[in-house]
């Protein structure tokens, strides 16, 4: 039996739907409202070009995402201290949220602001004026946002991982410090396999690394924890970090279930773009841990309901695509579906933020292991191995590696991942560069993605 196809909505259509929902008794959370207000109030013009899922759960997700800066300001006004975590994507916030009165966010998230505002905010040219030009990845927008202060509130404390991190971020964060924003740096060493006879530790996600690296990171996290606790006026303790780990695992558990439900379904019940955003909630709970749980629960309920009633968001014959790296322009996720693909799995560069954090060991030890499982701190081959494993489980028919303009890792890692996929699974893949506003390159993108989807379809025919 075919699935019932649910069409996505444009921003205008969402306003009509919003009115209907309100009339029929929708109870909005405190950050709720019609989506179009983000265009008028915040200048998020890209929303006018995006297509959205029509569920109240998706509405809540988008509103949650798009009100983050506003909610941070409210939190500060209510007395919370704001921690700007940088680069580690998923470790420091687990600790910060465990301390009463602290709230962590990633200024790195400004990565998407040029896309959302269709560059009307001029953050990229402003970053260039500060010495960081287009040879760096879009995260350079963060630098200008710090300087102009018009986006996120200035954090009370900045923490950044250093060592095995991309050159782009390392250079930009250093520039930021020189501009007068003090940073607490902590070391994340490059992950390596243990040598014969060397003591080792197993990391979330199954990788194994040398024990001494875990010791190093644990020591560093203890230093970070001490500084965070000082900011919160508390004494750091394992009990505090344990609570943080358990709460993080609650979120990760929900997300894991959502991913399983959506990605393993024969026809996905939620669209790619909403899945990308839902996954992003794992890294710092979009500045509100409790609300993240509510948002993910709603999405999971919606996905299950649709699965039960055979409702899908793409055609039954959509090509199952495994996607690697976040897209600088969110519209690319819409385009994948418009052109006949669907998302069946992802590695948006923070898989470690979705892995379960071990609870059967001291919390800082567990967090250190989690931090070292970051796909970006080890060899591209490790990342490729995980992509292969997950793509196989998801029955992927094709893989897309999104190349991030200017990113130091993008020069070589795409080739390694695509080669591993071809070798292990024999499925076609493509690497495509996606700019923060990809309209101008849409014909090229269409050519490459559509050719990929066609190739994947042709392989179906050949199979007995």
């Amino acid at each position: 039996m075919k699935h019932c196809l649910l069409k996505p909505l444009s921003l205008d259509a969402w306003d009509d739907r919003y009115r209907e929902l309100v009339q029929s008794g929708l109870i909005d959370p405190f950050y709720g409202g019609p989506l179009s207000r983000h265009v008028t109030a915040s200048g998020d013009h890209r929303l006018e070009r995006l297509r959205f899922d029509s569920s109240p759960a998706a509405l809540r997700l988008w509103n949650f995402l798009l009100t983050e800066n506003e909610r941070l300001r409210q939190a500060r006004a209510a007395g919370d201290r704001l921690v700007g975590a940088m680069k580690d994507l998923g470790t420091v916030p687990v600790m910060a949220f465990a301390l009463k009165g602290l709230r962590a966010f990633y200024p790195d998230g400004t990565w998407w602001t040029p896309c959302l505002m269709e560059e009307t905010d001029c953050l990229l040219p402003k970053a260039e004026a500060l010495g960081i030009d287009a040879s760096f990845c879009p995260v350079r927008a963060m630098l200008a946002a710090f300087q102009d202060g018009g986006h996120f509130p200035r954090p009370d404390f900045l923490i950044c991982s250093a060592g095995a991190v991309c050159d782009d971020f390392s250079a930009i964060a250093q520039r930021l410090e020189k501009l007068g924003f003090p940073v607490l740096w902590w070391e994340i060493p490059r992950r390596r396999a243990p040598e014969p006879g060397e003591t080792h530790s197993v990391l979330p996600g199954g990788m194994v690394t040398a024990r001494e690296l875990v010791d190093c990171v644990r020591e560093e996290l203890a230093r970070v924890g001490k500084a965070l606790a000082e900011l919160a006026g508390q004494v750091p303790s394992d009990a505090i970090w344990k609570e943080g780990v358990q709460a993080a695992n609650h979120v990760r558990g929900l997300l894991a279930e959502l991913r399983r439900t959506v990605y393993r379904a024969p026809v996905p019940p939620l669209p790619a773009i909403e899945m990308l955003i839902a996954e992003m909630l794992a890294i710092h709970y979009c500045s509100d841990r409790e609300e993240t749980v509510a948002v993910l629960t709603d999405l999971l309920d919606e996905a299950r309901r649709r699965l039960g009633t055979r409702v899908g968001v793409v055609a039954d014959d959509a090509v199952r695509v495994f996607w690697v790296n976040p897209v600088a322009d969110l519209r690319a996720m819409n385009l994948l579906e418009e052109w006949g693909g669907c998302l069946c799995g992802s590695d948006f560069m923070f898989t470690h933020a979705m892995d379960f954090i071990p609870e059967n060991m001291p919390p800082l030890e567990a967090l250190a292991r989690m931090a070292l499982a970051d796909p970006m701190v080890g060899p591209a081959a490790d990342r490729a191995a995980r992509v292969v494993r997950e793509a196989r489980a998801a029955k992927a028919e094709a893989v897309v590696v999104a190349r991030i303009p200017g990113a130091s890792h993008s020069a070589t890692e795409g080739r390694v991942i695509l080669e591993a996929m071809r070798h292990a699974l024999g499925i076609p893949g493509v690497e495509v560069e996606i700019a923060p506003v990809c309209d101008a390159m849409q014909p090229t993108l269409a050519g490459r993605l559509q050719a990929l989807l066609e190739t994947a379809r042709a392989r179906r025919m050949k199979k007995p």
Partner: protein
Amino acid sequence: MEVYLASPWIPRELVEVHGLVPRGLFCAPAFGTATPRMAEGVCSFAQQSLELARTHCGQDNAVVFGSSCDQMRRGFDLVGEPQKTNVFLFNLPATWQSDAAQHLFRAEFERFTRFLERLGGRRQADESAATIIDGARDARAKLRSLWNKLRARGFAECIARFHWDGRAIVEPASDANADAGVPVAVVGGPLTQAQLVILDAIESAGGRVALNATETGERSLGLETPFPGRAAGSTGGLARFFFSRIIDVWQRPNTRLYAWLRERIEERNVRGIVLWHHVGCDLWRAEAASLREAFGLPILTLDSEQAHSDRPRLAHRIAAFMEILK
């Protein structure tokens, strides 16, 4: 066996102490003569290091990369598949103020020692080891003292020779006029042998390289740190000694680099800075604005692509910069 080191911060003395021959890959005479075929975004220096590393690995020598930038780490991934026994990535901590960073460096130092032993190296007796380490320290000190006694190219070649074969040979006669020309600092990434023409161009245009702070210049000799006697027998002491001499752009924070530059820029009355970076090197490229703000001096940014493809234009830009400084 020769052990090629891709960074000046990997202790070459330790290689020698194990009876092997250390070679600074970054000073290889072959560097920069080949036309790099670069994938977009790849640092031209890392790319060439990779190619040289492949050649040397194929000749049964060993290659050691430093983990200091993404480009080098990923370069190592492409050469150093797990089964290869003659390739090593030395984990150089980016942070340097914490105990964890010190511990990490020491652990790497010990792992590097095991690597050298796997290659067939045998640690010499403490007395001989101390002689090697002290000898290298003295050679570095001697080279440092030459900054105003030689022409820019001659000084750079002496340093390159030291990294290549450990010798600190200096021509007896001084050939520099310490008062002639506008004093400038050349700051940045590695300046390979083939790229020394930049130093010549500065001098031809009426400048004087009062500070060569590139990765192959005076900076690569490291910080002169107090070293309590002959500590060759103490692994901890040695590791601390090697770790504390690093001065580089990738350190976090990189205040050590700025403090080292400030001392020399002020002492040597530097009037302008030439920032040299390889195409694809984010770490140095990002420093232009910070250098300008920190020292309040005019900056000329030169990259390896310009040096490679358009020499007349490069010379013209350098001459125009010198005119401004005059």
